[in-house]
């Protein structure tokens, strides 16, 4: 492939690339607008992350700790 041919290919890619990037991100704009319509507006005044209780393995820790605390208290109250 000589340079001129490569240049024409590069120009093609440049055009094609920008069209594709714009098309892709334009559709994403539409998608976000749809998101807003269907999922937006439900912002809670209270901070949201904290109360969501973690489950699964995390629970192991919680249980282990609470278990340990419980048992430790028991073992001390025994005396």
């Amino acid at each position, binding site marked *: 492939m000589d340079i001129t041919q490569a240049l024409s290919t590069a120009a093609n890619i440049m055009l094609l690339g920008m069209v594709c990037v714009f098309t892709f991100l334009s559709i994403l704009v539409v998608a976000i607008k749809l998101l807003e319509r269907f999922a937006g507006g439900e912002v809670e005044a209270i901070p949201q992350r904290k109360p969501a209780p973690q*489950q*699964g*393995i995390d629970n192991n820790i919680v249980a282990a700790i609470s*278990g340990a605390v419980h048992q430790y208290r028991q073992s001390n109250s025994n005396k």
Partner: protein
Amino acid sequence: MEGLMKLWSDTGLANFVPGQVVMMIVGALLLYLAIARGYEPLLLLPIGFGAILANIPAAGFTDEGGLLWYVYHVGIETGVFPLLIFMGVGAMTDFGALIANPKMLFLGAAAQFGIFATLFGAITLNFIPGFEFSLADASAIAIIGGADGPTAIFLASRLAPDLLGAIAVAAYSYMALVPIIQPPIMKALTSQKEREIVMEQLRPVSKKEKVLFPLAVLFMTILFLPAATPLVGMFCLGNLMKEAGVVDRLSNTAQNELINIVTIFLGLAVGSKLSADKFLTVETLGILLLGAVAFSIGTASGVMMAKILGKFSKTPINPLVGAAGVSAVPMAARVANKVGLEANPHNFLLMHAMGPNVAGVLGSAVAAGILLAIVGG
């Protein structure tokens, strides 16, 4: 134009196969269960995401050299990931309640009937045309009844890699469903009076006992069931690091960063096995059905054993704690506590249920070892 055609010919739109679409919907469903419902999100979120990635047409995630291909081969085929998770779980587990009341081990043993009965059930399903479970398949499916994710993934990767995706999904889904599956069975098998039984306070356990316990378990596994030593060994290593008190920085890493890193990759790797040709089969329906059966039988046999044990025990035993013998730590112990509180608002069973709960982990690792030794050899 040539470039445009190439781009189009590479798009997902031009390459989708119906099965892939369905599997992506399955992946999205798992994400929904994980995020919106809080079903075992630590595993089901990466599994669901992995399922979506694995089914992208022409993206090559599961082809040789693809990201999920590497993760699966490095972590699951070698067995390393479930073993590392098990080490971390060991470092999180407190055996105090079990050491204080070792009888609870019988409950953890009884609940394993869920596994072995399901093995039988899986073979029985072969009478129905369309099912052709081998003994190895049946064993891998049955371990769902162990209610223990890493054990199920480890055994499935050894005995039935093709069913790994469905088995892991079933195992984690049912573990998340324990609060729904167990209470009716527990209530059906116990009287109000039995559920009201108050158990005696547990004796304090010395540090020495806690340090020696994982070594004793390992020692016995070495003597009687070497096939279970990968699982039990890594679990005991984690627990020993926790209880030894001299390597806290290793123990903390094992139960935090290391298990987190491995969990992300394990989930993706399991998800990568959720391909249409392996998952969209009648066998998956059978696995889901058998999994539910396994959990139910395990719960029932745990409760029944607790009733029997209570008859012979000097100290009272509330049969509800038997249900925790299936493991599903610590969900099953909490369910026992909750059902107990409904019967008697002053009866806190949580600590008492932790005994059978962790016994169930050992029990299903032992059961996995037995299946490996008999079927896998």
